[in-house]
């Protein structure tokens, strides 16, 4: 009995001891080779020598340490102390052991490290209004052009056309080492200049184009400044890239640059047939549009082409449909001749021949008219543009300067289309030229510390003569009893503008800003058009109602005042613009005068709640005067079907609008959201009264009351640390209302609603692999008497593999899906780009493959207020280009 209980106690104690105390203590003493104990020595516990630290401790003043390890297994202990070589020891922990003793002897080691001096380098530095990014922390070596580099800088958004925005604000200019060559035409630099010489990218907020206005004007503008690395300054450097592929696809690009302190030169050429548009938006170079920019009178004055034959804007990469053969040569220089005088010259020559192919099936379903038109359309646009700009900036003193800008543009365009219209072969030919001369003189004086006076004068002379020929005659119903077999439409639109503006800016001591402007702008438009009906080559008729001799003169004498009242981070801005107009309209048989007077008020607020929250809101009421293309009175053939005319009388349009913008976070926060809302109501607006026939349409401009538009857009950014990826969410909703008259109907109301939602996920791994994927849905609904709707989806997946320092591969794939078409509505595209560096950055071999799935055509579905259109576009076929790049 006694032995049984004893036995039971023994067993239970054995069981107890094996269940409890599942941790083992490792202890010991650390000594040096002379037997002295080493105090405060590191003891690390790791799974193996390369893995991360599980736990750690230090030896005490007597060199003794102890540490507990819970789980059984094999561990590596690392013992290290300053002045001694570290040592590893493997221990095996099992459940039975309570205590393990590990004593260690460390050998002394004289640290032979030399002094390490590293200048504190921060990848992002924020200082007042400037954020500086050190490019090497953001790039991975695959960037070719400056545009590729800027896509990697956080906070910068670059869309598919290359427009660079910081947040929601487009940049004013892209400077190189403080000097700007192209202003709003910066795409010519971002799309061509190589990325490798750039060391830093500076984002300049609250930027002023005129240096005297810095700190005086209220500016939300942003500009970018690229800083070059030392070895790329003051030397001639550049690159040549040549590529050749199947079916005659080729590409030749050269860049030659020298950015010194005194003079900067940038020469570039681009010859290609792969659909790449090297000029970006050429119009931004020739006619930059600046809003709310002091001394920018005349920016909004230009001549619009009445007749145009151009490919439509599509919602995917233009280079896929751009069958081109382009040549661009551009020479640009900045001379800082003396400390006071700066001369800038810009010139480019662009020749391009682009082909565009499309087939169209248009269904028109109105109450009384129902028909289907088929078009097989081949368009060839040839253009030859020469542009030159000369800028002088003279600094009289630190506070006084004079600026002169002279521009000359000459463009020659030839647009030919071969058209199969409902089975009838038609040839359309539009040849036109554009000649522009523009001279601006601007004087600025900062007469007190925070007060600036600007005086600007500008003269513009522009004309666009056009000749439009059609070798068929479709308009028997309009001109009965006419024996004609072809048509010629001539048009000459000329404009002369002269404006003077005086502007005073006064920044008060309490940070309020008072601005007042007085000016006079005179614009004279002359529009002469003539429709000729021909039989062979003989003019048989110049029908009445189709000839225009319009002269429209507008003289605007105005006073603009603005006051910005700010209390801490809250500001209210009140604006009142007073206009006295003198209008004169001379038509073929009449002449009319009027002198309207109106006031345009505007109230806005700007509230910076804190560093991460900002609200901006505004309300405005504007009255605008009709333009030349709104007032001409006789029909013009503006395409091969549409005849259009204006109202033939004076008009002023009234509109009110409310905007609201909320910004949460900023570029450096993990979470960033930007919400924008705009509601606008046009009290009057121009609409059309259109007569639709199968072979032609006749559209007259009419004045209609009341139209509303609302748009809400929200962009969110969130960075997930655990997957090192950034998530972007893009939501938008817009609804607009439109009214028009078709075929003598009642005033039809057209309501159009668009909803868009998209998300994107982009990784920021530092290894050899990175991804970027996204998807976007767009839902469109148009409602008149019937309802038409469809949903499109675009998804993309980009993968980049940087296998080693020399070799990388990038794959871009897209998937398009169009709703509301029964067949063939899903399209896949894949592009591949691979590069291998040969001799250390001097020579590089490249392989470029586009449209690898060889998607030959693309069908799009569009709904309008009168029916629907199915359009099929021809795409550039698959091509593979072998490229060689030489850098010097």
């Amino acid at each position, binding site marked *: 009995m006694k032995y049984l209980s004893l036995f039971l106690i023994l067993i239970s104690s054995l069981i107890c001891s094996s269940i409890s105390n599942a941790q083992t203590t490792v202890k010991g003493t650390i000594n040096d080779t002379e037997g002295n104990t080493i105090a405060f020595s590191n003891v690390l516990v790791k799974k193996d020598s390369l893995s*991360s*630290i599980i736990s750690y401790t230090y030896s005490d003043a007597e060199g003794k340490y102890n540490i507990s390890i819970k789980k059984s297994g094999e561990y590596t202990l690392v013992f290290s102390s*300053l002045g001694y070589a570290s040592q590893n020891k493997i221990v095996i922990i099992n459940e039975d052991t309570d205590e393990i003793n590990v004593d260690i002897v460390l050998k002394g080691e004289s640290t032979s490290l030399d002094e390490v001096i590293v200048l504190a380098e921060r990848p992002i530095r924020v200082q007042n209004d400037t954020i500086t990014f050190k490019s090497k922390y953001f790039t991975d070596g695959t960037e070719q052009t400056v545009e590729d580099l800027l896509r990697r800088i956080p906070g910068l958004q670059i869309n598919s056309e290359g427009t660079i925005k910081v947040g929601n604000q487009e940049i004013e200019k892209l400077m190189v080492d403080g000097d700007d060559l192209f202003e709003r035409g910066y795409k010519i630099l971002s799309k061509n200049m190589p990325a490798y010489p750039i060391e830093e990218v500076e984002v300049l907020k609250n930027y002023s184009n005129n240096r005297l206005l810095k700190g005086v004007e209220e500016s939300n503008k942003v500009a970018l400044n690229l800083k070059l690395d030392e070895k790329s300054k003051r030397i001639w450097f550049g690159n040549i890239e040549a590529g050749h592929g199947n079916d005659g696809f080729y590409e030749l690009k050269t860049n030659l640059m020298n950015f010194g302190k005194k003079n900067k030169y940038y020469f570039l050429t681009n010859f290609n047939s792969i659909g790449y548009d090297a000029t970006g938006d050429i119009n931004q170079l020739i006619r930059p549009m600046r809003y709310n920019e002091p001394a920018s009178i005349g920016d909004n004055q230009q001549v619009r082409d009445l007749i145009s034959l151009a490919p439509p804007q599509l919602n995917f990469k233009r280079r896929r449909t751009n069958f081109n053969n382009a040549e661009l040569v551009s020479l640009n220089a900045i001379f800082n001749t003396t400390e006071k005088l700066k001369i800038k010259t810009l010139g480019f020559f662009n020749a391009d021949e682009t082909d565009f192919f499309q087939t169209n099936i248009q269904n028109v379903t109105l109450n009384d008219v129902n028909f289907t038109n088929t078009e097989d359309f081949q368009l060839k646009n040839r253009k030859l543009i020469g542009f030159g700009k000369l800028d002088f900036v003279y600094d009289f003193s630190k506070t006084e300067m004079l600026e002169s800008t002279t521009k000359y543009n000459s463009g020659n365009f030839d647009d030919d289309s071969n058209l199969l219209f409902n089975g009838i072969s038609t040839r359309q030919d539009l040849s036109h030229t554009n000649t522009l001369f523009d001279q601006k003189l601007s004087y600025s004086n900062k007469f007190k510390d925070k007060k600036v006076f600007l005086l600007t004068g500008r003269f513009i002379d522009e004309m666009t003569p056009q000749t439009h020929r059609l070798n068929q005659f479709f308009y028997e119903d309009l001109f009965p009893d006419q024996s004609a077999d072809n048509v010629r439409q001539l048009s000459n639109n000329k404009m002369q503008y002269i404006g003077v503006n005086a502007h005073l800016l006064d920044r008060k001591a309490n940070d309020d800003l008072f601005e007042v402007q007085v000016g006079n702008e005179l614009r004279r438009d002359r529009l002469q058009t003539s429709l000729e009906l021909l039989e062979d080559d003989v003019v048989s008729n110049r029908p009445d109602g189709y000839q225009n001799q319009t002269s429209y003169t507008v003289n605007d004498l105005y006073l603009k005042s603005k006051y910005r009242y700010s209390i801490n981070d809250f500001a209210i801005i009140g604006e009142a613009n007073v206009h006295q107009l003198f209008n004169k309209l001379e038509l073929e048989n009449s002449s009319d005068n009027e002198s309207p007077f109106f006031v345009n008020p505007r109230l806005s607020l700007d509230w910076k709640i804190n560093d991460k929250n900002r609200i901006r809101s505004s309300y405005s009421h504007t009255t605008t005067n009709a333009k030349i293309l709104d007032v001409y009175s006789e029909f013009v053939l503006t395409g091969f079907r549409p005849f259009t005319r204006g109202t033939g009388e004076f008009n002023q349009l009234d509109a009110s609008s409310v905007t609201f913008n909320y910004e949460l976070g900023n570029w450096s926060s993990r979470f960033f959201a930007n919400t924008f809302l705009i509601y606008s109501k046009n009290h009057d607006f121009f609409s059309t009264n259109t007569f639709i026939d199968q072979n032609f349409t006749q559209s007259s401009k009419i004045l209609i009351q009341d139209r509303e538009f609302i748009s809400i857009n929200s962009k969110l950014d969130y960075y997930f640390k655990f997957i090192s990826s950034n998530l972007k969410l893009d939501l938008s909703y817009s609804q607009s209302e439109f009214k028009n008259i078709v075929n003598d109907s009642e005033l039809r109301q057209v309501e159009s609603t668009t909803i868009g939602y998209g998300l994107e996920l982009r990784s920021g791994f530092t290894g050899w692999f990175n991804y970027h994927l996204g998807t976007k849905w767009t839902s469109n609904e148009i409602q008149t008497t019937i309802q038409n709707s469809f949903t499109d989806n675009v998804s993309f997946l980009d993968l980049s593999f940087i296998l080693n320092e020399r070799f990388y591969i990038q794959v871009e794939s897209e998937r398009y899906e169009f709703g509301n078409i029964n067949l063939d509505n899903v399209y896949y595209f894949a592009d591949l780009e691979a590069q291998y560096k040969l001799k250390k950055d001097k020579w590089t071999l490249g392989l470029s493959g586009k449209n690898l799935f060889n998607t030959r055509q693309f069908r799009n579905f569009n709904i309008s207020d009168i029916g629907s259109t199915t359009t099929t576009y021809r795409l550039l076929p698959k091509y593979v280009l072998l490229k060689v790049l030489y850098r010097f």
Partner: protein
Amino acid sequence: MNKLLVLLLITLSNTYTQENIQNHTIVEYTLDLNLDIPISKNSQLTFTSAQSIYKEGKGDIKSIPDNTQVRDLSGTNPTFYFVNLKDRTLRMKTQLDGERIIVKENLPAIEWNIKPDSKREIMGFDCIEAEALFRGRLYTAWFSPDIPVPFGPWKLQGLPGLILEAYDKMDEVHFYATRLKYEQGSFKELNIPNENDDHNEITLKGYIELRQKDVEKQFAKLLAKLPRDSRVSNIKTSKYKGLELEYPWEN
């Protein structure tokens, strides 16, 4: 008699030099403070295996917002922080209202959470990331086990390696090392106080209370000096905002 004297001298000099020949390391740090006014401070950490001295330089005000006047009350002498691993204390030597004081506290036991699989290179050293909540701020610190000392800038310590960079979650505090140097030879004991030196030694709690009273006293002096026809529209003394936002005795 002579031999004895020489022996005495030799042993005396031996013990003297033994105390002073130690390998020590000097690390220079920059602190970027982004509180109400952005300030940058250059400091120096000197350490051996058992103790460290952190000498904090004067602050350089990077930019002054408009309509603000700044009066610097930090005094002309730098502030020192001493960490002694033997008695586990942290002493701060500074000045308040012209008087030199020593603030003594127990070496704070910071509960660092080491992030496994984190890796980064700073100044050529492989660093590992760790995170901890210390006195009201959530710090991220990058330390290098290749320099096996538990020291770091200011009061940040306790990791199995030297802290080369540390910043808080609100982007208001950022310490980063800019230079590292190993020196051999005499370790200039820049006035390290020891237990005997306890004149003017106060606790941390006592120091915080004294400092708040000093700020109020300076402000009162300013108000008192205003001319007769000036009107004070708004007085607001905000709570002193510094590196430490909360203290262990507060709840």
